[in-house]
């Protein structure tokens, strides 16, 4: 059970934080006026 919880913590947080940093990267790019 502990192993499953640790695995879930890693997977969920990797997905959420990955999404957040991708969103921040894209938003900063569009805010710079560069859409390439």
């Amino acid at each position: 059970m502990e192993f499953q919880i640790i695995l879930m913590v890693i997977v969920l947080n990797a997905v959420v934080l990955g999404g957040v940093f991708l969103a921040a990267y894209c938003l900063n790019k569009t805010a710079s006026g560069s859409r390439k």
Partner: protein
Amino acid sequence: MHVIPQSWSHLHILIGVFPSIGLAILLGFYIAGLRTNNDFTRRICLALIALLALLAIPILVSGFGSRAALAGNAKYSADAIATHYMWSIAALVALVLSGAAAAFQLWQAWQAKRPTKDPFYLVLGLGVVAFVLAVVADELGLKVDHTELQLAVTIPDISTPQAWSHAHLILNHIPTAGFVFAIALFITALVADNDLMKRGSLVLFVICCIIGVPTYVAGTAAMWALTQPPIVDKEISLAVINSHRDMALWTLFGLAFTGAVAWIELWRSRSLGRFSKLSLNLVLLFAVITLGIMTETGHRGGLINHPEIRLASDVLPTDANVGTSVGIEEMMKQMIWFVPWQTVHFFGYCLIFGAVFAVVLRVLGFWKSVSFAATHRLLVLGFLGVLMNVVSGMLMMFGDSYRYVVSDTTFAPKVALIPIGAMAVLYFSASDRVWNVKAGESAPTTAKWVAAVMLLAWAGVIICGRMLPYL
């Protein structure tokens, strides 16, 4: 379900809150129009205040109708109705006078073919008086029906304070009625291509969405306040509450999407110096969909404690163990779901506090070598942190909401500090004066105060959150 009112009481509770919320919003826009010398914004506000005054007629007629329908019913106190009636008449008179003054200003400007003027701040002054009276009338109107708010008997560690129900009843009208005005002002801004009104409407959408968070939390607390222990003399069904909660969950998602797109456009337009047509249309689309969801949510909420608006044809839910909210509650009670979301919540605070701290350092003058615009870029990380924590916090609350609202004394201050911190972030996202602070320059004094409040608010949220299991 009948969303369209079929009785005077239903119509009265539906339109009764529009003057107070409408006046607060329109006067805010009117002040912005006066300060920036934007005649178009002032004209629209004057026209809308005049239109709002016309609402006095259906409010008065439906009020008389409700009074006649409730007369002789022992559940409703005649004294409470009489007090509400007296203050409402005063509020409606002030509303009509504000509307007449607004219409007169518009007519004068139109006749003289000149911009509108308010030399004696007549519309503003009457509007503020009407707003204050309308707020008092609304509060007294709540007391006519919601007798549970005056319950004095509480069982320690079992009863949830009725203050939560009271807060929910007040707060829920801000996003619902607020969205109606925000959409009207936003459409006008898009048609007339007025940047001040576009910016103002986006800010208004974000404020409504921020208020949605404490509304949802207070709603969950109100569920416990009304059902555990059950209220004597009130027929409150947990199944009906659950059906309202399920719709409220969709509302929260709708608000999150609308607020997110509106905030991103506010933030992005700063650097670009213009608005994106696609983003503005997207905000409008999300706002209209969210308003639709909110209307049904509000109607289901009204059915909980307003037997007088129920129709014989209404089929109310009877099983309290079905629905999305109940399902999520069961899921979040398991460690395998609670712990990962709690970790997401902590990462969210790291993002919020990191971004907030950088902005605070610059505004307070500890990091003058960079322009404010450079720290403005970081705000997006704080915003994404808020979004992460609204979702993860809501899920965590599902896991043990009864304990949070009954036993944890730091939960209420935490929930109260969240909108304060978020509004401060909104100020730094939208303020013109702060945006123009170059490297080496000092920020305006107002901005420094807001920065201090923002830092204390978010520090308070984190401290209160951490103290939850212990105090």
